[in-house]
């Protein structure tokens, strides 16, 4: 079936079986490889994108659910060359090791800050509890989110 998606502000129409996970449409039909495949069962969070502003696991979301909807991926988190403040914080804190989970971590953290600009450590941990990192970068992730929250609080 024909599916129309708005991804990072650009409209795409793809002809695809409607049970295809959104992940593979984003990666292989639209060509945005920043969203990662980790588990295929919504267990690791590497594939997290925003669907109408809310985080979803794209590996387990049929593309038909997203028909006519608006999606933001890691490529859409920055504003052109201007990084999202979380992305800058990730660099400043040297967060990524292998880096494979970080798109999902960033998308989840960005959603958290969108409704709670000054989260506590517990709130950050709770929001990110579904995003696995095999390299164990968690403490740097929380510190990076916290630094953005602190800046917001000071502003």
């Amino acid at each position, binding site marked *: 079936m024909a599916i129309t998606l708005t991804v990072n502000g650009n409209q795409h129409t793809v002809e695809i079986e409607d049970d295809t996970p959104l992940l593979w449409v984003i990666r292989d039909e639209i060509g945005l490889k920043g969203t990662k495949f*980790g*588990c295929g069962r919504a*267990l690791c969070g*590497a594939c997290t994108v925003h669907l109408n502003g809310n985080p979803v696991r794209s590996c387990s979301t049929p593309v038909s659910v997203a028909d006519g909807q608006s999606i933001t991926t890691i490529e859409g988190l920055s504003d052109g060359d201007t990084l999202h403040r979380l992305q800058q914080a990730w660099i400043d804190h040297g967060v*990524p090791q*292998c880096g494979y989970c970080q798109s999902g971590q960033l998308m989840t953290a960005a959603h958290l800050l969108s409704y709670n600009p000054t989260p506590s450590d517990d709130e950050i941990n709770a929001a990110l*509890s579904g995003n*696995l*990192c095999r390299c164990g970068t968690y403490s740097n992730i929380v510190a990076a989110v916290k630094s953005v929250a602190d800046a917001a609080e000071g502003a």
Partner: protein
Amino acid sequence: MGMNRRDFLKVSVASSGGLLLSLNLAGCSGIRTGYQEDSGSWRPDAWLEIGRDNQIYFTLARVEMGQGTYSGLTTLIAEELEVAPAAIQPRFAPVAREYRNPLYKLQLTGGSTSLATSWQPLRVAGASARIVLIKAAARVWQVPAEDCRARDGRIWHPNGEDSLTYGQLVELAAGESAPDEPPLKSPDQWRYIGKGRGRLDSRAKVTGTAEYGIDVELPGMVYGVVTRPPRYGARVDSFDAREAKAMPGVIDVFAIERGVAVVADKYWRARKALETVAVQWDNADALNVSSESVMDFYRQAADDDAGEEERGDGDVARAIESADRVIEASYEQPYLAHATLEPMNATAVYHDRGMEVWAPTQAPDLGRIAAARVTDLSPDEVTIHTTFLGGGFGRRLTQDFIEEAAAIAYRVRRPVKLIWSREDDTRHDLYRPAMLHRLKASLADGRVTGWQHQLVGPQILDWYVRNAAPAQYPWAPKFLYGTLGSVGLAAEGIITPKDMSAIEGAVDYPYRVDNVEVRHTHADPGVPVTWWRSVGHSHNAFAVETFMDEIAHQLGQDPYGFRRDLIQHEPRHLAVLERAAELGDWGQPLPSGRARGIALHRSFGTYVAQVVEASVDNGEIRVHRVACAVDCGQVVNPDIVRDQIESGVIFGLTAALYGHITFEDGAVRESNFHDYQLLRTQQRPVVDIAIVESEEAPTGVGEPGVPPVIPALGNALFALTGKRQRSLPLTARPA
């Protein structure tokens, strides 16, 4: 053709755990050095290329899988070349002799060796280029070279005002000769080493633009998926692909050596078609073990065969005879999966000039062998492009995913991307071996007089040599590959060095005890195994450091003081032990319901001691804090050292709390992250790290954080509950 000109690349090492072969092949390499007319750049050696446009490229001969080589090794070159690390563009190396790991004589990344093996050669490479650039500039200005200096990508005239960029000098520099032994900067002159300035690959990794293997895209590319037998060693007997072949987008369905492959124009179409393929497996040679039967097999093996003596100091038997008391304990550890977050994958295309493969691999030259084995090509006709790796931990030293992709691409004659599912990845891993340890200590007059350690399990080299041996005999025809594997094994100790994978961390028992015996009973139940972050240390540290704790309690001694008294003769061990005890508040009061455990372990040349603070809360183990002292020699990037040690702590805690791969009737029960769990952010302890100052040569940090945390947590739980846990994973409710 540039010959391999640098003697230091031929370092031969007698006692590493890797494969070593003393064949002295005088072959030329494919790395052209000197001035390159076509590109207008100068290539002083295999690692560096400086363009007329001042662009500096560094060929990174070790892969980047999160451990920080991309930044760490670039920093070494940058320091001596006198440019900021960020001014250098790293490129992943092609397969060439220059890029082999001198410890292994193979181009692979593992064993926490990248920094140690690159420390000298990369600084020399950078310094040689710097000096040649200075000589070229001195010739231009007609001034003494000693009076010129390099700084920030320029050579400066003695007058301190005039300068030439490296790019302006490359053509001239190519005509200058490099010094045999260029002087290296002294530590007080370092501007980048030891300063810690984040990572060079961070921006690509936070914007989604870093290219991992799974992201490779080729024109006309199709997708391959494979179903493999649930029981290792089974073969395809027959399969019915009629339904699959009629499904949209399906291009072909066929058997390969390891299973049945479906190729389709889209990944999801291939995956869905694969579900309809009914395979009859021939289980004649299939694995038929359970986790229980493996341990029974080990126990029987231990009873039947005392094993090879790997270390014998003094006379343990006599020490036991004359002891006041003898303590014995057995420790058991399960199989463990690597669970890299990026599942196994590779992209291959077969064309008239050979095959090209793009893959996240830790051993690209072994990838060539794997691809050659299943095609009509020789390894030289296979090109491997290495990408970023979404985790490695030893898994990607084995090239089964490249072999599968190559077999599929050879058959369909189109570019193919093979992607494993998470279930494939969990169930068709090569595992950290399950192990059994039997320990015995003799005590007399309140001290330890004898230490006996019998460990039971397989050797990893037995599993690896089939892939690795042909890479060391590049002249060998393919039909000999199998033989090379068995010859390498038959001649172990002669052709290949000793396989330390099972015994490392046990034979180097560091405490001062007069009579020490370590034996390995070689028992291989047929489950595929390979290196797993920290390898033998991952199980030996648990056995040794838990038993040390048991002895301390039997003697009524403080576990820290007991260790400290027995390690006085080893200053680097002692220093990290004391530092960790101090940092971890050893002996200080704790909130009720909490306890501390301690452990000390050296691996990969790096010394680590840890104090773990834990409790049991609502029926779950809670790890509050890990205090960690590290001596890894001189520090190139303190941020990366801290991150890697913390990463190892999380990795070790994941194994201690959750890690188990369970075999039932020859098949693996676990499949995905719900039953093979990883530690989550809210479960992470506070990790405090102290780096002990050292002037020793740098050693690895990717693995040494893992081993001690497992026994340190177990020891804390004993202190808390009074119940000793001797098998992993640990539980909140010990029987």
